[in-house]
């Protein structure tokens, strides 16, 4: 331990300027005066982008330099003939990466979170999360440095890897579509890459054999992939197929739906996908009711299906504990999926909205063959989840904080048709990934709930690695009594007086359970036979 500490202090003695520069950049980016609620102007954006790029460069330089201080790939290094073991050296380097680079970044994130009134617990989590992210990032650079002996060779290796990654991207995307669910899941590939990286790093320190280290890393990667695929073979879904079932419709507003099916891996289930495609993308339209596939988390969505006559067929299934991989038509994978199943693909960003996924018993699906009708959805969400995620008093200037996110109402306005329009400015602190969001208006006194319609995120601002903000425009049209099949249009001011706006971040808590349900929802734009 003493040797580890001495080596760490020795490295700190040399590289403290780089660590200080990284800290200063972290602080600058975190406390940039105009960042957060309202970055404005091209100058700010340029400053942010440059500072972010320089911060990344400084972190990479520091990680590479601290490893090259005691080179692993060279037989001329002094440490090899000193009483300093490879594991001690590795521990000292990781200590430097943690204490000098990752921890200050995490502290900055915590400070920024506190500045945005996210509260000590959430801010601590933010700091930890940010610190871990930075540590993993610099560990990757350290791994690169461990197999090179100079900044130049490390730079060449980095360029080569970047090129190789770019060339392999189509295959990775293919694996992302057809690969096992863990590979598709957020962070799955990153976790695999990091595991392989750490194995290579440890082996290189222990043995100092570059070729073998790379071989061991490749072997570790292949074993991890094989295990992942073997596990996935049991749990993954089979290939989807287009069926002759048509539930698609075309209405004057320009929506077309078509059903895709695939066998469900559980015995008697099938998966039904409804592709919703705009034929007239320029038309103004409103979506009401809960969003569909964008929120198909485990157990989080349900449906019911009605015949054209209006007769009830059955409610959909709300399986609990399903892997969210079943929501395979998640937004990011849609274009690839559409290609895979041969769906005509128009502009995926504007003309084709999403592919909604439901699942039901096979026997019920058979009953649907040849039928067309109105698709309805029922959304279920846990009341406790809602309360935990924080809520805003429904008045302009109200703001609320939740883990990783600060929300502030900018305006509330009633629509002429009785609906409600709310504009919310959201600042993501430590924006690791895009989180699906859902808003609800809850009136406890009347025991009624209104769910937001299709969410529109507007006005994305340039952000840093710590902060990114945008405006959400939310519309509310209908309200449901809890536990009732009935819904009513319109949200009058007296109803709103007792309402609170609830934010649900699906990345932090998946919806499920029973308390708040909105049954009998009808998508009015989709109906009638094709």
């Amino acid at each position, binding site marked *: 331990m003493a040797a580890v500490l*001495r080596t760490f202090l020795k490295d700190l003695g040399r590289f403290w300027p780089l660590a200080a520069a990284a800290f200063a950049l972290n602080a600058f980016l975190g406390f940039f005066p105009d960042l957060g609620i309202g970055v404005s102007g091209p100058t700010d954006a340029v400053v942010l982008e440059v500072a972010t790029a320089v911060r990344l460069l400084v972190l990479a330089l520091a990680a590479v330099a601290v490893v090259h201080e005691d080179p692993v790939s060279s037989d001329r290094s*002094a440490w*090899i*003939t000193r009483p*300093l073991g490879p594991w001690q050296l590795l521990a000292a380097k990781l200590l430097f990466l943690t204490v000098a680079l990752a921890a200050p970044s995490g502290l900055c994130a915590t400070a920024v979170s506190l500045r945005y009134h996210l509260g000590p617990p959430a801010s601590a989590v933010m700091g930890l999360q940010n610190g871990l992210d930075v540590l993993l990032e610099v560990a990757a650079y350290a791994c690169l440095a461990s197999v090179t002996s100079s900044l130049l060779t490390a730079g060449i290796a980095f360029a080569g890897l970047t090129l190789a990654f770019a060339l392999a991207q189509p295959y990775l995307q293919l694996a992302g579509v057809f690969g096992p669910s863990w590979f598709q899941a957020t962070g799955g590939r990153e976790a695999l890459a990091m595991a392989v990286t750490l194995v290579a790093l440890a082996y290189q320190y222990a043995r100092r*054999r570059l070729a073998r280290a790379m071989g061991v890393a490749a072997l570790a990667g292949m074993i991890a992939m094989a295990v992942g695929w073997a596990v996935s073979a049991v749990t993954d879904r089979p290939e989807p197929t287009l069926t002759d079932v048509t539930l698609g419709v075309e209405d004057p507003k320009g929506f077309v739906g078509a059903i895709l099916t695939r066998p469900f891996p559980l015995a008697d289930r099938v998966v039904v996908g409804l592709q919703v495609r705009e034929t007239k993308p320029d038309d103004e339209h409103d979506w009401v009711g809960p969003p569909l596939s964008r929120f198909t988390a485990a157990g989080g969505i349900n449906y019911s299906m009605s015949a054209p006559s209006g007769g009830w067929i059955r409610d959909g299934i709300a399986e609990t504990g399903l892997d969210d991989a079943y929501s395979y038509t998640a937004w990011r994978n849609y274009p690839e999926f559409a290609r895979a199943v041969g769906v005509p693909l128009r502009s995926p960003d504007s003309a084709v909205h999403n592919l909604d996924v439901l699942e039901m018993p096979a026997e019920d699906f058979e009953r649907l063959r040849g039928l067309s009708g109105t698709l309805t959805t029922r959304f279920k969400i846990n009341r406790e989840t809602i309360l935990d995620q924080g809520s805003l008093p429904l008045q302009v200037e109200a703001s609320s904080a939740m883990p990783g996110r600060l929300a502030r109402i900018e305006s509330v306005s009633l629509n002429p048709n009785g609906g409600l329009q709310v504009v919310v400015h959201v600042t993501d602190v430590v924006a690791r990934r895009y989180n699906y969001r859902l808003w609800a208006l809850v009136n406890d006194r009347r025991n009624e709930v209104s769910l937001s319609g299709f969410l529109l995120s507007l006005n994305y601002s340039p952000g840093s690695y710590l902060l990114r903000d945008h405006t959400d425009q939310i519309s509310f049209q209908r309200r449901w009594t809890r536990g009732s099949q009935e819904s009513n249009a319109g949200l009058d001011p007296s109803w709103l007086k007792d309402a609170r706006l609830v934010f649900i971040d699906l990345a932090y808590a998946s919806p499920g359970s029973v308390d708040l349900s909105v049954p009998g929802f009808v998508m009015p734009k989709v109906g009638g036979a094709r």
Partner: protein
Amino acid sequence: MNAIECEHLTRLFGRFPAVNDLNLTVPTGSIFALLGANGAGKTTTLKLILNLLHPTSGDVRVLGCGSTKMGKEAFLRIGYVAEDQVLHDWMTLDQMLDYYRPFYPRWDRDLERRLRTMFDLPPNRSLKKLSRGMRMKGAFLSILPFRPELLVLDEPFSGLDPQVRDEFIEGLLEIGDTDRPSTVVVSSHDITEVERLADWVGILAEGRLVTAEPMPALQGRFRRIEVVGPGAGTRIPREPGPAWRQVEAAAPNVVHFVHDRFAGEPTEREIQAAFPGTSVKASPMTLREIFLAHIRRAPPTGAH
């Protein structure tokens, strides 16, 4: 007991054998000079011995421990200084010693002070601002105070001016028996310098060991022979003796050669029998001359 034992040690770089089936022993307590021309395999051999490189085949034991299993404990007993070693150049001498000192429980502060006085190094100038000779002395200073049982020096004199070489050697010699490491292995192609230092000599050529033996024995068995005849026509025999090297006619009545198994009077009688009626003169040879005699012929002999 031997400090170092190499058995059938081979290291290939691609297909090129930098070290080829090397069998070498370095006796404990010796100052062993490993000689060879550039590219003979000296540095590779030392790196294999210290586990800086992995052997393609063969085994090495250092202070009783297999080299591939040498861990940090082994380097509490082994010191290594090499011309191409990467030092922490940004450090001052004081910083370097402060960093290394705690690693060694047996670090001798008194010896460190004496060596600092002897080497006269600036304590607060970064190593990269020191001359090459000073840097080598600094490296030496970071090794000797922990009193290694084995000291390995790889080309320590390379690129040093004669004055620094003298200081370096005198420094090593003047430490005295009690302070000197028990075994020293020094590789060099600066033969004149190591002749003053070494009591054992090993010669490498093309990755193979040509010879390894105590300096007195080596110098004792090598003689430069001059055969002078009474008149012109002193001929080189059709079949020179097996111990004769570099046989040449220096003049019509003079033949020169090197005898590598010289044993005094019996050898002289044997030579005179080959050159009847001549006078034979045997002269001692310097280590440099012996080395050159080996290099010019260099028949691989394997282990000694």
